[in-house]
């Protein structure tokens, strides 16, 4: 799991590249043919439907988020309302979800005591991201709640505040010493290492957390829109022999929908796991 986490730490670069490619591709395609509905970044900024101009403006994506949250609350309210020692099917599934975060993330990385302390934050983080990611592949909603920067940013700030709080609460001296001056580094490179550590720990961590999630969701959505609007275009605008291509793009769209489900789960897991890792590094005595 650690290896995966480490590998994914470096993922944003690729994701950004992918995004750039996708955007370029779309711009080109869009200019080639006017009949083709090209996916664009403006899809993530739909019209405001309620409270326009106030800080509480609500647009389609906000509504999608509310639906995801309502579903989340409903599932876990029903699942934990009357818990029995011998669980039924539904309770088993809910328990499995909660236990996944509790055992595989919190307790594995933080141990029983700290794991329990930070469990509410980690659980909230995981399921909030998971449910909002999954709206991207649910017909009718079709956009991830996390594909607008608000949720990734707020959660990254929560993660940031949490691991700094955890470190300072444990021991301010140790926390900053461990974070900035790793042991075993020769004295003459220590200033450089300290600078790098400062940037990577206190600046890059929240930025990468935000961007990784955001870009994954944006790109996922753009790809799905691309494949399905291409299918639509081949089938209804061009027709004839182009139908063959429609079948191909539909197949790709289908495959990427499945892939998006995987990404939705994986990104929720990675975000939560990294937060747990940061907390663990912050409360570690020495590393």
């Amino acid at each position, binding site marked *: 799991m650690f290896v995966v986490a480490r590998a994914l730490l470096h993922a944003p*670069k690729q994701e*950004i*590249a992918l*995004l*750039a490619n996708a*955007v*370029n591709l779309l711009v080109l395609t869009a200019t080639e043919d006017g009949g083709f509905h090209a996916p*664009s*970044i*403006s899809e*993530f*900024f739909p019209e405001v439907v309620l*409270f326009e101009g*106030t*800080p*509480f*403006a*609500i647009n389609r994506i*906000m509504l999608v*988020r*509310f639906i995801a*949250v309502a579903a*989340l*609350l409903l599932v*876990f*309210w029903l*699942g*934990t*309302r009357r*818990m*029995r*020692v011998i669980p039924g099917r539904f309770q088993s599934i809910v*328990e499995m979800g*909660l236990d996944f975060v*509790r055992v595989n993330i919190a307790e594995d990385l933080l141990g029983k005591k700290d794991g329990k302390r930070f*469990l*509410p*934050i980690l*659980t*909230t983080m995981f*399921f*909030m991201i998971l449910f909002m990611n999954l709206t991207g592949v649910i017909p009718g909603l079709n956009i991830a709640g996390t594909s*607008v*920067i*608000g*949720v990734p*940013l*707020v*959660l990254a700030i*929560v993660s940031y505040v949490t691991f700094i709080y955890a470190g300072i609460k444990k021991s301010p001296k140790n926390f900053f010493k461990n974070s900035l001056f790793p042991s075993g580094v020769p004295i003459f490179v220590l200033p450089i290492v300290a600078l790098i550590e400062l940037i990577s720990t206190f600046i890059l961590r929240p930025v990468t957390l935000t961007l990784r999630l*955001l870009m994954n969701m*944006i790109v996922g959505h753009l790809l799905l829109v691309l494949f399905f609007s291409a299918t639509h275009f081949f089938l209804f605008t061009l027709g004839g022999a182009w139908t063959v291509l429609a079948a191909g793009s539909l197949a790709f769209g289908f495959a990427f929908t499945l892939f998006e489900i995987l990404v939705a789960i994986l990104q929720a897991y990675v975000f939560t796991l990294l937060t747990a890792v940061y907390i663990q590094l912050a409360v570690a005595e020495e590393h």
Partner: protein
Amino acid sequence: MLHAVVSAATEGEYNPLLPADYDIIWSAVIFAVLLLFFWRYALPRLQKLLDERAEAIEGNIAKADEAQRKAEAALEEYTAQLADARAEAGRIRETAREDGKKIVADAKEQASTEAARITASAQAQIEAERQTALVSLRSEVGTIAIDLASGVVGETLTDDQKAKAVVDRFLADLEASEQAAAGGKK
């Protein structure tokens, strides 16, 4: 690369990296609601359930231990009883054997006593009969002898007093001679 994205994005009118105020506010509200829900409602319930389950499992283990202990105790008791029963059976058999021996011995003794008694009574009877025979023989021998003697001497020994004296004398002589003969034989 990041620059490319930003510039590509700013070419349009939207920049996905710049958060809108409502976006942040709603995200924060949602997070707060969910955190409160999990922290105050769902997770405590899960914890309670896990505690209950652990308790139930421990209770069941204790119960199973208890049952095991009882079963072992029962088995032990049963084994002990079986051993007792065996010992008892052995003892009974032993007693029976001894009893049997004793009965046989008693029977033998009784039989031999009976046999001895029968033998004794038979001998006594024989003796008595012999005595009777002897007495009757004596009186008959006396009569015969007197008849004979009457014949021989030609006179009748009618006088009983006399006759008896003669016979007794004769018999005493006879016995004496018999005894002498028996003593000689011995």
